[in-house]
């Protein structure tokens, strides 16, 4: 065999092993959580309040809490993020200031989530006096998601060929008309894809909601947006590290983890479906 053939085969197998290793880790985690958590999942677990110092009962308020917070995150991050992206990509020029803004946004997506949590405490809980509640936590997660939404939305806008914009302008469309009728319809699926991925990441975050609204134990649903709430990731954290009888509640922790993963997976699935539909529209 020639030397370069051997090189090629070695390179190929090293790359293949990398993929296999990553895939194996993923499978092990999923298997561990599923096998230990699935026994706990039943209708009662999903719909009942926790009881007896959280050693019994279900995780209903945590599910609802996470869903509510994620909705608020979406309400903040989607319009604001898309608006920013549209402005940056369509209107703002390539000046020093806009470059600084762009770099800042990209850097913000790398800021640790605990920092967002602290920022949320200062801005929403204290300065705006909202208190620790669903709203504060949702807004904090919304801020954390914004850089992702903006970056993904800008990418989606960049994917729309310039000839769509020019074609519309040449027919006497105003700039906003060309964007509204000939750019946004083709970029919104891509924007949504990125946004949903950002939201699913937010739904699984613990640190930002830790100080801004998530409660240790509340055997009832939040009464309003200004109530504290339970959330899946925080519940999981409590059950696996802070509970007084950790070994007894271990199955509940696994069940919670499984529900959380399922929720995130479902959101990512939605993103995939949206993207698939986008491709099909483009192909037509």
């Amino acid at each position, binding site marked *: 065999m020639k030397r370069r053939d051997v090189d090629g085969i070695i390179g190929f197998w090293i790359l293949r092993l990398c993929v296999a290793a990553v895939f194996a880790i993923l499978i092990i985690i999923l298997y561990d959580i599923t096998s230990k958590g699935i026994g706990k999942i039943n209708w009662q677990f999903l719909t009942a309040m926790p009881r007896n110092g959280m050693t019994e009962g279900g995780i209903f308020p945590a599910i609802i809490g996470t869903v509510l917070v994620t909705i608020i995150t979406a309400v903040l991050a989607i319009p604001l993020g898309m608006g920013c992206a549209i402005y940056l990509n369509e209107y703002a*020029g*390539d000046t020093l200031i806009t470059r600084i803004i762009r770099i800042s946004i990209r850097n913000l997506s790398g800021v640790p989530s605990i920092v967002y949590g602290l920022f949320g405490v200062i801005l929403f809980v204290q300065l705006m006096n909202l208190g620790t509640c669903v709203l504060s936590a949702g807004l904090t997660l919304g801020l954390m998601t914004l850089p992702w939404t903006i970056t993904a939305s800008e990418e989606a806008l960049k994917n729309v*060929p310039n*000839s*769509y*914009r*020019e*074609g*519309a*302008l*040449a*027919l*006497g*469309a*105003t700039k906003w*008309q060309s964007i509204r*009728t*000939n750019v946004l319809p*083709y970029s919104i699926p891509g924007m949504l894809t990125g946004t949903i991925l950002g939201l699913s990441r937010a739904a699984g975050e613990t640190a930002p909601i830790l100080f801004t609204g998530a409660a240790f134990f509340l055997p009832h649903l939040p009464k309003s947006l200004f109530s504290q709430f339970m959330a899946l990731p925080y519940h999981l954290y409590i059950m696996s590290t802070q509970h007084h009888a950790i070994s007894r509640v271990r199955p509940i922790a696994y069940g919670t983890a499984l529900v959380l993963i399922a929720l995130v997976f479902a959101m990512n699935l939605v993103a995939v479906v949206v993207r698939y539909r986008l491709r099909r*529209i*483009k192909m*037509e």
Partner: protein
Amino acid sequence: MKNVKIKVSNFNFYYGSLHVLKDISMEIVENKVTGIIGPSGCGKSTFLRSVNRMNDTILGSRAEGEIMIDEKNIYSEDVDVVDIRRKVGMVFQKSNPFPKSIFENVAYGLKINGVKDKYYIEEKVEKSLRDAAIWDEVKDRLNKNAFELSGGQQQRLCIARALAVEPEVLLMDEPASALDPTATLKIEELMQELKKKYTIVIVTHNMQQAARISDFTAFFMLGDLIEYDLTGIMFTKPSKKITEDYITGRFG
């Protein structure tokens, strides 16, 4: 005497510090085809895009001098660029149908200009498609996506789309450069029909095409307008040596 539709006076154009059009002055005659030829990078496309102010969208660009259309300087401050672009239609080098149905492509310009009347739109779409000599090929599939059409059909669809908003001038930027000879011939025949109603300015790098279709020809080089005359004169006895060299294929 023929009517002058577009009068360009001492027009200069810059991309940043790059001086791409140098002191251009010329008169473009109504209901004629004016061809613009010249080697790559000579500024012919920039010139064309100056006539509907499409260059406005390029950051850091700057125009000086006047382009009068019907005695109105389109670069004066009180002019709404949207009005200019309705009056001066454009067909791009690469056909750029929108990812909509054939019907919606042609109706697009009407709809953004606020036309609501469904019957008027339908009539106008049919008329524009007929004028662009593509009606017979698409009349049974108006609701199909425009991307299903062939390259030549797409380009004629883009012409129909431009005609629908009733422009007075039609700018064409190498409209046939990506098309096969049959499709090119169709576009060229079409232009002879269209010039009865419109003033046409066409950029082309194909000398034979310029000779075949245009009534006047302008030769640009490195941002200068070298020579501008009746096509018959330009191609038989140009007054400048450099024009002759270019036309006979000695460079370019």
